[in-house]
């Protein structure tokens, strides 16, 4: 029973991490219509910038996380402003561009830091116990930071003018532009927000799990999975789907072993994509 609940707690913490990751991805798709193939790359970049700040600059861990967020955000902003803006109307071209960025980024990380997984540990260790249930302290801290961030993003999207402008662009770009909302100003900011979220997740999660250049691929696949399940463009859907995926992954890795849980999940999402391309909560699907 205890292991069931503990696995559930791990599933919840995984779900929150995935939710933060998927949030950025679904924001980019909803607002810009861009499938960001480099999302996993920004995750890894965040992890490595945090690691480099701690080990080479001697910065304390919270500052390292902030630096990671800034680095991912700025890189995303510049990339969108100078490269993506030229082709933002053409979905397949933007896809290829983000793919190209991902390849360049992962080569850059590989060349700078080497293929080995560096020693990057969370500064707080220990386990929090409550009776027979336990959760590692690091998971708890990351969980609370993620929850706070998700809450902040929700507030941003639904309570501020900036968020309203972004949602208007997501709904109908032309009408929003006609109303005076400037995509050229807001798209880079939206992209930067999403990549900063990916970088934050990387900086927080990689010391707990593992930091290595090749992590970008599974992270990207998981983001795809969650965002398709929840509905491309839907923030609430992405959060819910992230929890589903987190729980399934936690329970299947403890009770089933191997990658059977991942396989079942992939097949389920494939079927879902075919039957209901808009996912659980997605908007009306264009071009499908």
């Amino acid at each position, binding site marked *: 029973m205890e292991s069931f609940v503990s696995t559930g707690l791990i599933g919840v913490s995984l779900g929150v991490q995935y939710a933060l990751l998927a949030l950025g991805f679904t924001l980019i*798709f909803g607002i810009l219509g861009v499938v960001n193939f480099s999302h996993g790359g920004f995750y890894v970049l965040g992890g490595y910038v945090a690691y480099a700040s701690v080990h080479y600059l001697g910065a304390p861990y919270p500052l390292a996380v902030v630096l990671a967020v800034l680095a991912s955000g700025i890189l995303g902003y510049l990339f969108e402003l100078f490269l993506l803006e030229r082709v933002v109307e053409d979905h397949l071209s933007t896809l290829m561009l983000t793919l190209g960025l991902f390849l360049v980024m992962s080569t*850059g990380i590989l060349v700078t830091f080497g293929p080995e997984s560096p020693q990057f540990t969370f500064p707080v260790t220990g386990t929090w116990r409550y009776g027979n249930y336990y959760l590692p302290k690091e998971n708890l801290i990351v969980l609370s930071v993620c929850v706070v961030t998700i809450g902040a993003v929700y507030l941003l999207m639904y309570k501020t003018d900036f968020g309203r402008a972004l949602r208007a662009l997501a709904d109908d770009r032309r009408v929003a532009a006609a109303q005076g909302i400037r995509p050229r100003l807001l798209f880079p900011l939206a992209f930067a927000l999403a990549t900063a979220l990916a970088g934050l997740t990387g900086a927080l999660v990689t010391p707990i799990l593992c930091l290595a250049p090749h992590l970008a691929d599974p992270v990207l696949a998981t983001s795809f999975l969650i965002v398709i399940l929840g509905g491309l463009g839907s923030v609430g859907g992405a959060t819910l789907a992230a929890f589903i995926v987190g729980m399934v992954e936690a329970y299947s890795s403890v009770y089933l072993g191997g990658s059977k849980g991942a*396989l079942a999940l992939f097949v389920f999402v*494939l079927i879902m*994509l075919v039957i209901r391309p808009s996912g659980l909560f997605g908007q009306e699907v264009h*071009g499908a």
Partner: protein
Amino acid sequence: MTDRFRSFVRFCGAAELTSIGILVLAFGIPLLSSSPFLVSLVTQILIAIPAAFSVYVMLRMDLMTFAVPAFMAMGAYSAAIVGLRAGITDTIVLTALSFAVPALVALPLGALVLRLRGVYFVLVTFLLSQITQLLLFETPKLTGGSNGLAGMPATTLFGVALEDNRAVLFLAIALALLAAAITMVLTRYYRQHFAAIKENQILAESLGLVVWHYKMLGFAVAAGLAGIAGFSLVNMLLTAHPSSFSAMSSVDYIAYTIVGGAGSMFGPIVGSALLVTANNMFSNRGEYSPGFFGLLIIIVVLAMKDGIVGTAIKLAQRYRGRSRRIVLTPTQIPLQPAAAAEQTPVADQTVER
């Protein structure tokens, strides 16, 4: 050039004939050089070519497919399993099998998947590749799981075993030629159907084109082409392992086609040749090659949307247009009735696509 030759070229397509010509010329490579490095490099290029053709065929219908590794794996593993377990090594049988198995699997998959387009199609095919690779790992009894299937027997043609490097090269050339022939027949015969689907699918449907027939056909043939590439790969390595068919390797094949030029059948050949060679040149610094690919993709998408071959054709046409005298056709409305007597002959202005 006689008129008959010209109309033959126009029927088959200049790019298509050039592609087939180049592939046939490849048979002469062992005569020019016996460097094993060159033979290996050309073999790798020839393995990539059918896979790039698979992407090319799908792009003719405006569908970007990330499922090439999945179908390559199907073709490769069916050849490997049949070779190892049933002892069948005849090349023709294996080729037919590696084309047929993915094509047949593509039929029900296509029924599910082809209703999606654009970004959603990309995601579904990416998931397909992920699922296939996971399935390869999770079914060790059939596919050898993470060990793969090693020690495949060499393929035989009419009883002669094709074992040495030159024989592998010749088989790779033959497979690439087969793929090119299939691609040529499909894309030339159904050129207008695919173009209508690509241009405006709803309009084509409203005009009476049964779109899903041609999409299924294209999808199945693209799957078969990828299967041939898989067989070619496994024939060179004599091992079938899931790591050769990762979902991200689909990016490589797409890059070959896009960088070469997705508008002409010669594009995938140019792209494969260029990028596989570049990949090999990075063999000492292998970690740089994905970055190089990425830079190329970015440059091509931003500056050379038609790829190398497409941009070259455009430049050639522009140059030809500048140096050719413009001659008026007789449909030009004459200013005065008298001017109709001095009409100039029909100009030869057809633009070859």
